[in-house]
């Protein structure tokens, strides 16, 4: 079982986490076209590479962002949404 590093609780087994999908920016509902809105709602980008993903540590109720390489299933780093590390 994988180990995932929760930014609040440290390394914990994958069983304690829930995947929340890719981190995506919502287009402005006031100006976006129907087609672009439908693309935002229904389509996901599954191409290989490093993904920014939402993960949720269930026992503590912590949402955080993980950068994960979906080719190797490696978590490169994890951080709170509001506190991205300095690049």
């Amino acid at each position, binding site marked *: *079982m*994988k*180990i995932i590093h929760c930014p609040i609780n440290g390394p914990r087994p*994958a069983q304690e986490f*829930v995947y*929340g999908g890719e981190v995506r920016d*919502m287009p402005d*509902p006031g100006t*976006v076209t*129907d087609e672009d*809105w*439908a693309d*935002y*709602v*229904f389509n996901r980008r599954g191409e290989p590479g490093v993904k920014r993903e*939402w993960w*949720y540590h269930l026992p503590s*109720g912590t*949402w955080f962002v993980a950068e994960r390489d979906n080719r190797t*299933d490696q978590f490169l780093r994890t951080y709170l*949404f*509001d506190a991205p590390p300095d690049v």
Partner: protein
Amino acid sequence: MHLPMSKRLPPREGEWIDRNRPVEFRFEGVAYQGFEGDVLTSALWASGVRLLGRSFKYHRPRGVYSLANHDVNVMVEDGTRTNLRGDVLPIRSGLDVRAVNTAGGLARDRLRFTEWFSAFLPVGFYYKAFHTPRRLFPFYERQMRKVAGLGRINRTARAEATPKSYATCELLVVGAGPAGLAAAIAAAECGVQVVLVDEQPHPGGSLNWQHAHDAAARRHLPALLDRAGSLDTLEVRCGTQAGGWYADHWIALFDDRRLTKLRARALLVAGGCVEQPAVFHNNDLPGVMLGSAAQRLMHLYAVKPCDRCVVLAGNSDAYAVALDLREAGVEVVGIADLRPGGETGELGQRVIAAGIKVSAGHTVFEAVPGPGKTNVAAVVLCPLDVDGKPRSDAAVRLDCDGIVMSVGWAPAGGLLYQAGARFTYVGPIEQFVPRSLPESVFAAGRVNGFFKLEDQLADGRCAGLEAAKLLGRHDGPVPPRPVQTGPPPSHPYPIFDHPKKKNFVDLDEDLHLADFVHAHQEGYDNIELLKRYTTVGMGPSQGKLANMNAVRILARLNGRSINETGTTTSRPFHQPVPMAQLAGRRFHPLRRTPVHDWHARAGAVFLYAGPWLRPEYYPVGATAPDDAIFDEALAVRNGVGLIDIGTLGKFEVSGADAAAFLERIYTGKFAQLRTGRLSYALALDESGIVIDDGLVARLGEDRFYATATTTGAAALFQEMQRWAIVWRMDVVLVNATGHWAAMNLAGPRSREVLAGLTDIDLSASAFPYLAAREGTVAGVPARLLRVGFVGELGYEIHVPAGYAMSVWTALMEAGRGHGIRPFGVEAQRLLRLEKGHIIIGQDTDALTNPYEANMAWALGKNKTFFVGQRSLAIVKKRPLERRLVGIAFPPGYAGPLPLECQLIVDGDEIVGRVTSIAGRSTVGRPIGLAFVRPDLAEPGTRVEIRSAGRLLRAAVAPVPFYDPKNERQQ
């Protein structure tokens, strides 16, 4: 009466048997004797038994082959357990086993005649023959099921709980042979915390059998074991296989009774190699065996493999085997060496000095069976031409009762593959070895292609030090890895055609060489396709003896290299694991409300609602359940009832942005909601689908209390948390579901019951419908919500969970004079259905938008944003596809009723679906809710419901069915 152990050799150093402890056991109904330390296969062979099993497809006789559980020739069952492997089944007093896969016993197996038809059963035969005509397939399937599969399941066996344990270490070393021991010792000497596992019952690996003839080599074993035993940080677990690798070095270790989930920081595999068979005619006859099997028989169990044998050599190891055999008293008639030049080294000279005849450039062309066809009687040798093909014109026949072959090895690399290693085929040693390894994965010994003992020890030490370095326990130099020298330990193509075609590549599945040629001709020229079409490697031994030869065959058929051909995927487990060891406890989380014990004492019948246990209804004496439920509903309609609704989600939402946040989460408007008022709240997902509903009560300027459905609360709360982060709003969210208990006191007399218990003014003017109040109930701080889910005057009473029981009993006590009844989920479902109140997830599905569910009234007007709003703008432009409506049967209807989810049809067309149904209602007729095509939504429209082969007629009806003007709940 026991048959004598006629093939047992005199005592020898290092044997695993205890001659002071004889063991009696039965096989196929016959009594035998062996010694403590024997496995079934060795004990039977020691007693001169040659027929140990029958093959899967043709029921061919089989005997000792690998003696390492790399084949499945010896599979037995004891009536409780099935498919036990004889190679690793310790004999114990009272063991009573029979071979699997026979009809009428091993010797007289009626299915052995299947083989006569083998010419008509080419690979792919079943795929091609038995799918037409389709109507006959059930017949084919029944017939095939009788002969397919291995072993019988005892359906009356008791469930067996098996222990699980968890462990951690810094370095897991797999394989306690010379390389693994050296690696584990080197790492542990640096202070690394090491666990060393080996599937054999004793450590030492090949030192126990392959190097047993060499006195100098043999002395390494006690030295290594002494050193290993002296290291505090080294734990040795024998009889333990590392069955599979999972992410982040989470490794499944299995011993005979226990699964250990071990987390390691680094993995070092020194699992050795699996000896590979040669492919020649009748290469599966009892008496034909691998050199390693012969050595295991002699050195571990002191059993003579045969009396007179021919050795088939493809490497130097065969010569060591020949010398071992001779030393054990076996007459070695000769060695057929596949290599034109024979053995050039010191072993070759020793064999010649021992008087053993060597025929270089020869192969075994076929094994000749004895009269009963269950043993070897002779061997036919042929010289090989320049292309490596047997010249049958120059065949020589030699009498013998054993053929021992040592032609090559394949790495036991399963764990390494799973851990992400890449292998490459190395020509000079004719073997796959790891080419690249992940950072914290190491390999050592034979798996790396080192077959000399000094190389294995040195390679193990290097790997152990490298691991220690990675783990930060060693900062000194690491000596360079050894360099492989000498002739290749494996022959590139020990595979020989024969006109009679019983030259087996896969003994599990009875696949012979011609099957591969046919499959290739049919276009299965990729290793993964070939595997699936021929089923090579898909039997119980998972291709340990077959996959490498299959790759060699395919490479040659394609005219390509081994590396171009590749290998198949290696999946857990290395050796089979009983299902009992994998099965977990029957466990799922269960939540009980704080009033649960009262319900239980009242005899409530419970049902699961998500993780919660809720009272379904409260039985009364001998009253039928349906009547009891209906009586509960009537009590609410006519008097007063009390239901535990503590399973509802309950969220505290506070902060400066609380109102704005709720307006974005829910479809309704909350900014203008006055303190002390509450409102219905509907939540959508981003695509505009209805996902949850509840109430939002404003308790203060920036303080709200929200409820959510029992089963949807957790998911909704997660989404609320995430949106709060994304929107960067000043809001504090607390999931107080477990903190608050809740109960709904409902019915025309509820006010009278509650009045004596609370300080809150309950008058209709002071506490109107859709108001929220904080005060005390039965002396306990409480939140009261005036709502009408069941369509009567009612109060939701929320109190801290710790006080729930006292409040509940106080209410029941206060209601006694009013005929109060507790009511369960079933009565509530009926009451709300009469009011046309929907249940999210029952009357809606994963595609329901608010317009279909008649919830447009719940969508706030002139709102700038809520989740799902933008999608609804798109949805609204399109015509409705369906609408949720009430349906009703005529008053007095007593016919059959549809079930929830049954279809509404118009001729052949599906036009809807029933979502809720109640046969008996307080409105005097069967009612329900259903989705129908919009043109059928007008009240009075006749609809037909397909139910159990009948068409039931109902009509669309206006909702609510009960109290349409909502006067009673006001």
